[in-house]
């Protein structure tokens, strides 16, 4: 599903965010991307949604080399990749329903479909009863569930989550990952960047560890591994 070949990203000022990263992630996998802050996790995610361009190396998503993707095709790439962020990125003046519906409106889905599917997905993430609430009326955990619902509403083959539990109460963090696991079980490839040791050690998934922009470990059913 995702192939990276010798990918290097150098930011201005000769800062190596990623160096010579090669990895394969298969369809339907659940992967933790771990490492301390500044290790390159966020850069890797930005490269996958083509928010940044690699300095060198090739990235393939579903056998398409995204380096060569025309600019106007980028939106269609992003429709195949749902994204969840630490800061949720919800629109404060829209309700829960409208926030999720937004992802469908933007891709031109008909109203009828939106009104049918949005409540379904919100029910899936456990917020079926809060359709008309505004983001600031929800807890961090609930807001992240809305963000996950929005990322998943168009059934993307890939879901990326960058520190999804970073702003969520630790007691609710596990629930968020369970939810991502549930989404993974529908066949969606899920990649979670995190430095939450407990989460990684609890779930025992494939772990790709980054340090100073390099892959230092790639392990099935792995643990966090940093002290």
């Amino acid at each position, binding site marked *: 599903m995702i192939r990276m070949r010798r990918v290097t990203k150098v930011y201005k000022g000769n800062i190596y965010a990623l160096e010579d990263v090669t990895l394969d992630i298969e369809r339907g996998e659940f992967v933790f991307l771990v490492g301390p802050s500044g290790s390159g996790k966020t850069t890797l995610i930005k490269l996958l949604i083509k928010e940044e361009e690699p300095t060198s190396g090739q990235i393939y998503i579903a056998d398409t080399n995204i380096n060569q993707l025309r600019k106007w095709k980028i939106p269609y790439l992003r429709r195949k990749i749902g994204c969840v962020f630490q800061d949720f990125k919800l629109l404060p003046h829209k309700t829960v329903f409208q926030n999720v519906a937004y992802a469908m*409106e933007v*891709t031109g889905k008909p109203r009828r479909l939106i009104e049918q599917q949005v409540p379904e997905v919100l029910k899936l993430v456990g917020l079926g009863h809060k359709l008309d609430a505004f983001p600031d009326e929800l807890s961090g955990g609930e807001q992240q569930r809305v963000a996950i619902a929005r990322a998943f509403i168009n059934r993307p083959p890939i879901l990326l989550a960058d520190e999804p539990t970073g702003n969520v109460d630790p007691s609710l963090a596990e629930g968020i990952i369970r939810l991502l696991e549930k989404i993974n079980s529908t066949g969606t490839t899920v990649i979670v960047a995190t430095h939450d040791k407990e989460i990684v050690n609890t779930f025992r998934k494939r772990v790709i560890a980054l340090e100073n922009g390099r892959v230092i470990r790639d392990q099935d059913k792995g643990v966090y591994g940093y002290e």
Partner: protein
Amino acid sequence: MNRIKYFAAETWASLSKNLILAVAAMAVVAVSLSLLGLVVLGWNMFSNMIKNAERRVGEIDIYLSDLTTEQERQAIEDFLVSLPEVDPARVIYKTKDEALKEFKERFRDNPELWENLEDNPLPNSFKVTTKDPKDVGVVVGTVKTQAPFLNRIEDVRSASAAIEKLENIFDKFRQVGILGVLALVVVSVMLVSVTIQVAIFARRREIGIMKLVGATNWFIRWPFVLEGVFEGTVGSLVAILLVMAVKVWILDRLIESLHFLRMAITPGLLGLLIPSLLLGGLIIGALGSAYALGRYLEV
């Protein structure tokens, strides 16, 4: 249909959020386009006046020196009659005495103008009328260069020379007017562009999220384009109303009360001007948003 409703709603929300700026932009568009309309109407009125005046004026006065002998006078008259553009029946010789009499007659209510004259300052002259008024210039030129005893001809005058001078002056006015309108159009494009920049800035978070969930570039751009075009169009509608009002309440009355000037607005000009102003507003709006989008919206 769904999409049009979505764009309209987004545009309206954005417009009402920075209403003051939007109103300012529309006002400047309105001012510049109404000025454009008035320059066009004014110019049209004036050039029609000139055309009508030229049609009337086919007369040329040729003033002779007092030293001219009867023989020389006769030669000049024969020359004038022989000109193909001149109506031979309307070559009239007027002596200086007749000229003075006419002058006194014309200004009999202002005797101070002629009472104290010691001798007659007015020259002998020919009044010549061309068959076709548009040949006045040709005849004036021919007389000035080819008439016999040129040294006896002191001056050749026609009303069209005066009109020409007037035309030159109004040409300058038109040039200044067009420059002013151009400057205002540039300012209105810039102001529309500023309102769009503000709108983009106010919605940068939303734009980021739109990109994230895979909105196409044009889907993101459309509401901003519509906003600019809306501002331009509303501005041009106001300008059209203003131009119509000035035409009906000022220009038409002016034409009527100064009817002897024979000013007129070409029929059908408004039918051309109104859609042009509308199109102008649309283009100003589109240019303004295009500039803002090109510079401030990276998609």
